[in-house]
Each structure stands twice: as structure tokens, then as C-alpha cells.
């Protein structure tokens, strides 16, 4: 909107100052009450017994093993979902086939499922009384109440993140650049690495950041399949729960502050990527079905 346009209608496009300040006040009060106060209180509660206790909790072997397990789960789930996201986006954006809308809806499915149910489905398949439970126990492989179950649950809850960022992006970019590269003699892999990847790198990074945040923070689904064995099947969020329920509040908040710090880093990185690539703005986390984001282009 140009300055001239603005001066043409000085009063009509905005509200009286009193209303403006009232609305800003209400919005800030709401944000302060629900977001800022909880954020500050995590760190305040974590430091309640002093810095010594804080770092002692973080160095505790049980905390360290929880951090390790979280890094393992995210370290497996994020790359796998990344490969899946790129493959799904390539197939959907670069080719025409029937049933695309159904495929898109199915990819989004894990978002609309309660975390508790996300854990439950793996218990039904791999648990002691599950479909494959007896086969795995005959071969001495433990999935439920063990690390593989935690990894599976983490993959499930973070399944759509990378795909749902890349599909609309690649759909919007079309196929002409890749087709040109092919016609000029590039191989399929050359086209992918030299043309597609540079085009989608910000979207990919964005998806990875969001996927990783959820992978490291997942609680409900992991809680169902974990078995809560301290030092073995405890992730960071589960360790927070155990500390909290054993009335070690300062310890629980000290470990929780690690996750809060991770959340803040996620928000900063996310904002930075949005600044670099404006088209990604507003697509984070929001489970508006991807089908509809790109429906006009299909």
C-alpha cells in the first residue's frame, strides 16, 4: 500500500487509538499469561535449588542416558522421515497419477491421531500378545518396552513433517527446470542433486527443524511403548516425568529447561528460515491438510 493511498483514507482503515490500545493490551496480556509466564517459570523452578543442583541433575548418569536415548531416537527418525519426505514429494510433485489426494490425506494421518493411540498401535503389532509379538520373542528381539519401540513411535509421530513442507514447495516449483536439465543431458541423479536440492534446501531444512523438535519432545506415544526403565528406555521427556512424580521438582524442571531451551532454539531457527524463504511462513506445525494447500494445482 502506498503512502498516497494511506493519506486518502486517514481514519477509515483503522480503529480509534483507544480501541487499538485495548486490543493490543488484551493480546499481550493473553500471550503473557499463557506463554511468557510458563516459559519464565520453567527456568525459575529449575534454578530453585541453585546452580550447583541444576548442573548436578544434568550430569546425573540417568539424565545423561535419557539424553543419549533421545538423540538416538531423533537421529534415526529424522533422517528416515527426511528420505521419505523427499521421495514422496518427488513422486507427487513431478508426476501425474490417480489417487494423489488420497495419498496426501494418508500422509497427514499421524497428525490427527492422539499420541496415546500412536503408541498403542505398535503395542498391538509388536507387543507380547500382538501380531508379531511371539515371532520376535522367539528370536529374542524386544521391541515394545525397549529402544526399537521408542524409535518406531517417534518415527510415527514425526512422519508427515518433512513431506508436508516439501510437497507444496515442489508442486509450486513445477517440473520445467528438471525437464530442461534432463533434455540438456544431465542424468537423473545429477538433476536431483544440482537442480532439485538447491531449489528445496530451505524447505528441507525447515521440515527437519520441525521434525527434530517433535522427535525430541514426544511424550505420550513414547510413554506407551517405553516401559519406563530408568537408564535404559527413558527419553528426556519421560525422565522429566519420573523426576516430577518422585517429587524432585527442581530436578524435573532442570531437565525440562533443556527441552525448553531446545524449543526456543527451534523457534529462532524456524523464524530465521522463514526470513530466508518467505513462502514457508505459516506452514509450520499447523495441520491444515496439505491436500487443500495445493489442491488448485493438482
Amino acid at each position, binding site marked *: 500500500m502506498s503512502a498516497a493511498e494511506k493519506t486518502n483514507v486517514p481514519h477509515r482503515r483503522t480503529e480509534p487509538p483507544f480501541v487499538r490500545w485495548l486490543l493490543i493490551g488484551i493480546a499481550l496480556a493473553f500471550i503473557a499469561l499463557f506463554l511468557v509466564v510458563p516459559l519464565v517459570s520453567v527456568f525459575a523452578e529449575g534454578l530453585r535449588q541453585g546452580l550447583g543442583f541444576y548442573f548436578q541433575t544434568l550430569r546425573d548418569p540417568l539424565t545423561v542416558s535419557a539424553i543419549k536415548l533421545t538423540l538416538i531416537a531423533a537421529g534415526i527418525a529424522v533422517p528416515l522421515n527426511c528420505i521419505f519426505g523427499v521421495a514422496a514429494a518427488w513422486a507427487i510433485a513431478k508426476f501425474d497419477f490417480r489417487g494423489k489426494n488420497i495419498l496426501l490425506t494418508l500422509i497427514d494421518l499421524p497428525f490427527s491421531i492422539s499420541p496415546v493411540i500412536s503408541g498403542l498401535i505398535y503395542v498391538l503389532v509388536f507387543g507380547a500378545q500382538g501380531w508379531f509379538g511371539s515371532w520376535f520373542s522367539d528370536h529374542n528381539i524386544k521391541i515394545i518396552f525397549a529402544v526399537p519401540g521408542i524409535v518406531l513411535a517417534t518415527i510415527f509421530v514425526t512422519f508427515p513433517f518433512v513431506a508436508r513442507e516439501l510437497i507444496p514447495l515442489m508442486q509450486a516449483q513445477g517440473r520445467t527446470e528438471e525437464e530442461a536439465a534432463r533434455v540438456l543431458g544431465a542424468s537423473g541423479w545429477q538433476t536431483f542433486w544440482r537442480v532439485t536440492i538447491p531449489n528445496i534446501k530451505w524447505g528441507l531444512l525447515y521440515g527437519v527443524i520441525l521434525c527434530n523438535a517433535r522427535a*525430541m519432545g514426544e511424550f505420550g506415544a513414547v510413554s506407551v511403548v517405553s516401559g519406563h526403565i530408568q537408564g535404559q528406555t527413558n527419553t528426556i521427556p519421560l525422565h522429566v516425568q519420573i523426576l516430577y512424580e518422585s517429587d524432585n521438582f527442581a530436578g524435573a524442571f532442570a531437565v525440562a529447561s533443556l527441552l525448553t531451551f531446545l524449543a526456543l532454539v527451534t523457534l529462532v531457527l524456524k523464524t530465521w528460515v522463514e526470513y530466508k524463504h518467505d513462502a514457508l511462513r505459516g506452514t509450520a506445525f499447523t495441520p491444515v491438510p496439505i491436500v487443500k494447500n495445493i489442491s488448485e494445482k493438482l
Partner: protein
Amino acid sequence: MATRRLGAKKLRVLPGFKLTLGFTLFYLGLIVLIPLSAVFIKTSTLTWAQFSHTVFSPQALAAYRLSFGAAFFAAVVNAIFGLIVAWVLVRYNFLGKKLVDALVDLPFALPTAVAGITLATLYSPNGWIGGLLAPLGIKVAYTQLGIFVALTFIGLPFIVRTVQPVLEDFDPELEDAASSLGANRWQVFWRVIFPTLTPALLTGFALAFARALGEYGSVVFISSNIPMKTQIVPLLIMNELDGFQYAKATALAVVMLVISFLILLAVNVLQWWSNRYNTNNLA
């Protein structure tokens, strides 16, 4: 468009269709579809009597009522305040606006367990906020009100993030037209701007509601988990799982899944409606 599609089909210059689609379907089946089908197959082995005994038990009915009620009121509160936050972020300038904008996504980024213990501590009778409310006789933590607070927290970003882009795209000339025809500011908002926002507002509402129905981590700490009183459906499912009552947990899960799918369908219809609405506006 039509000619290019035709051309692409004839030439197929791009490779990897079978590989990528094959992997996509394989991975989707392995991680999502097969495990998810287990819920329905397991439930189909129950007799109707067993199924209805679980899903219509008084405890389950009380849990549905609380889940729906708390999720509904949390979504209503978020619809009102989310609209104000989105409006303020799009229309006004103030110090710290960018920070507030970035902070709105905190409930998505913050692990639910952290939100849970933080809200439980803040709203407990000797917490920062609970301590202020206790003299007034208002108890929040370990009551139904606490569940509502937790669900409001986790649903906060949905309405802001669905309304914000629509408000940004709104054509200010429509406002000028309305006000030059004599509408006052409130009439412009209520008759011109608000109807355009309605589909987005309803979508955000449905998303926040759906998320709240399934929420577990942020509620488990602030709820006392007393059957019939402060037990929402995911907590009830978790209780059955802890008691190794897999059949019962699965039956309840089927009910929740069907409800989530219905909400997903409603969101899709709403999106279609809002797309149509926007096209009409442009025309």
C-alpha cells in the same frame, strides 16, 4: 496446463517415478497403515456386547463428556483471543511485535510434558498463579478447570495461524468501499471483514478442538485423573493400557479415531469452502 501434462506423459523425461512412489507406499504402509489397521482388526474380534460394555461404560461416557466439554471451551477461548492476537499482529505496530509473532508457536515447539509440569506447578495452590487464585476460592490444578487451562495452552497457535494469512491477504479496498458507502468501523469489521475470516476461524477452531481431544502430555500432570471427575479419554486409554486391558484400550481408541477422522473430514470441507469463498471475492 493441459498441453504440458500431455507432453510430460508422452516424454516422461524425469526418472524415478516407480522408485519414489514405491518407497512412499512401502514406508507409509509399514509405519502408518499396517499398525493403524491393527486397532480396527483387534476391535473386530470383540463381540458387540464386549465392545459396547467398554465404550458406553459410565466411566467412558464421563470421559467423553469431559474431553468434549473442556476441548470445546478451550477452543472457544482460543477463537476469541486468537482472533484478537491475529488482528493485532497483522494490523497494528507495537514494540515486540516480531517477538510475539515468533512466540505464538511455542505450544507447538514445547514438549507437552514440559507444558504439563509447568502448568501444574503454576496453577497449584502454592504456585505463582494458583496462589493468587486460592484466596478467591478458585482451584485450578487437579480440577476440570486445570484441564481446560492445559488444553487452551496447547490450542493457542491454531486460530492465530489460520486467521493471520487470510487477514494479511484481505483486500483493503473492500473496507474503503464499505466506509465510503457510509458504514462505520464496527459495521465494516462485522459485515465485511469478519465473514471473510469465518472459514479460517472455523478451521482453526476444528484443529484446536481435534488436538485438544487427543492431548495427553500437558493434561496428565494437571489432572488428578479421578475416574468420572477429571479423567479425559486419552488418560482413560492410558489407564487401561497400564492395567494390560488391551481390548478395552483398543475399543476406546477406535471411538476416538472415528471422531478424529470425522473432524478431519469437516476441516477438509471447511478448506474447500474457504477456497471457494476467496475465489468468489476475487471475481
